[in-house]
């Protein structure tokens, strides 16, 4: 099913020109290796820098301190927690991202179900608006929201972010769950409805259990999107104890004319770990979620 063209071509030529085929295979794998290196080598370098000591950073890369550093030190990681207090921003980020995810999943599942199944008037227009909202320029939102939060005395608090981040998560999640509900055969529901169950009972006992994979995908994407925000955090948060992790990182490692990249990169490694784990274990789900019905 996949890779039709190369497979067909190989079959046709394999008899006559084996060396050409082998060269092509070698070039292909070389390209694959280069792509993987471009994607992942920078992460190795980040880890390498994070494990340097301050004096190694000052000395710079080169000589004995090359691709593999001469010494490894956990000092930067310790300092990120003990001196820079990275635990607080990490906790803030986890609270906000989890809360956004929960709200998103509930609200998007409700709307997705309604748009897929209950014949409401104007469903097309509603869906169009939801998608358009996903394209709304974030930097056009910050001014008015800043003034609003200021008048509510809620600037420099992480809690309003939970609502604001919905602009990242709701459009894609609603769209994704709507497509997901459409794919569930409606016979299941119809059977329950004819048996006298109400719509809500049917939802709870029949639809939601079947929808778990779709909800899970929406949750993963929402968590990633909320975890990754920078623009709102940098606009609304002003005191370090209220920073989210991405914002806190930008304040690390500055000391006079020298930037201590080991401190910055230790923090970068820490906030990349949850994301890297999610991607490794849920790669398929993320790919299907990103592409679900996006152009069918």
């Amino acid at each position, binding site marked *: 099913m*996949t890779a*039709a*063209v190369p*497979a*067909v071509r190989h079959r046709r030529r394999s008899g006559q020109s084996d060396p050409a085929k082998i060269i092509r295979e070698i070039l292909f794998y070389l390209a*694959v290796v280069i792509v993987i290196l471009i994607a992942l080598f920078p*992460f190795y*370098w*980040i880890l390498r820098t994070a494990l340097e000591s301050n004096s190694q*950073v*000052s000395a710079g890369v080169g000589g004995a301190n090359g*691709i593999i550093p001469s010494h490894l030190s956990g000092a930067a990681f310790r300092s990120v927690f003990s001196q820079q207090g990275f635990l607080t921003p990490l906790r803030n980020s986890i609270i906000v991202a989890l809360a956004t995810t929960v709200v998103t999943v509930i*609200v*998007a599942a*409700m*709307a997705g179900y*309604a*748009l897929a199944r*209950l*014949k409401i008037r104007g469903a097309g227009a509603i869906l169009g*608006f*939801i998608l358009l*909202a996903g*394209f*709304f*320029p974030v*930097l*056009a*939102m*910050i*001014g*008015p929201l*800043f*003034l609003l939060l200021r008048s509510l005395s809620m600037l420099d608090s992480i809690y309003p972010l939970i*609502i604001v981040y*919905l602009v990242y998560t709701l459009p894609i999640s609603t769209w994704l769950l709507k497509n997901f509900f459409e794919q569930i055969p409606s016979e299941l529901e119809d059977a329950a409805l004819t048996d006298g169950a109400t*719509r809500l009972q049917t939802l709870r006992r029949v639809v939601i259990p079947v929808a778990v994979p779709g909800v899970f995908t929406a949750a993963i994407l929402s968590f*990633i999107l909320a*975890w*990754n*925000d920078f623009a709102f955090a*940098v606009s609304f948060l002003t005191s370090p104890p209220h920073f989210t992790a*991405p*914002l806190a*990182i*930008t304040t690390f490692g500055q000391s006079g004319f020298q930037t201590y*990249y080991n401190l910055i*990169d230790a923090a970068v490694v820490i*906030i990349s770990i949850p*994301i*890297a784990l*999610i*991607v490794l274990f849920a*790669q398929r789900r*993320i*790919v299907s979620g*990103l*592409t679900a019905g*996006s*152009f069918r």
Partner: protein
Amino acid sequence: MAAEAKAAVPGGPADAGRPGRRGRSGRGGRPAPVGHARERSDRRLGYLLVAPVLILLLAVTAYPLVYNIWNSFHFDNLSYGNLPHKWVGVQNYTAMFKSSQWVSALERTVIFTVVTIVLDVVIALGLALMMHRKFRGRGFLRAAVLVPWAVPTVVSAMLWKTMFDPRSGFVDYFLAAFHPAWASLSWLGASVDRSWIAIFVADSWKNIPFVAIILLAGLQVIPNDVYEAARIDGANWWQSFRRVTLPMLRPALSVALIFRTLQALLVFDVIYIMTGGGPGNSTQTLSFLSFQTFITSTDFGEGGAMSLMLVVLALAVSFVYVRAFRPQT
């Protein structure tokens, strides 16, 4: 009475022959109001279920939009303490269009967007073709490619800031092999061109994977027989790519282009983190300027005007793409 008896007579014998029909008409006949009521209560439930998403999204998009329009015709600057928020007409707009800072930001943003979408889509297409092929380690390749997309922009920006640092990064370390003077080349904050190169690398490294995944999904829905037919007609690889793959990839390409264009047009995080708009003002984009006007200068009048231009630009781009890629019938 007579009519009822008449109806019952043909109903009897027909029963055996058309059980389905009778069943349906029976259910539809007696509890007719129930079916109707269900549809009505369904619809009511539907509005109830859709309401939260609409209210929340209107609160974070329509409210700021209207507020921006209102602000853009008023003087509203927190730095000027208690000056009244008086009506100033189109003053904020004329100030914006006359400001060379805004006009250059617009030019930069447009150039950055065009370069980004052209290069990113070409590279992503190659990457998608690679990920589409069946080979050992394809799953690993896909996961590896996804990681840069999934990490926060602060990570990709800080990561490349490290890499382009002459002391801590690998860029100059590897470049030194080509030319000794390149061993301590400074990039960010030193040269305008090199700052843009660094921004471009960081931004594309993070965003190409997304485009590639969308295109990959597009490749996967092209049925096999189309290629088979092209092969039987004697098409070589390039011909079948030009005549089969590209046209059938059109819907996926349009989705990828819309997303990527808007992302590039509204670029902010990576600029803020890597250059802060510098050296000088040379890497300021429209979104960055809008941030500065709101948060640094606390000028919500001119900021409102700038925001409105952002919205208009984003809408215009989406509109053009939707028109250009409308399915041909």
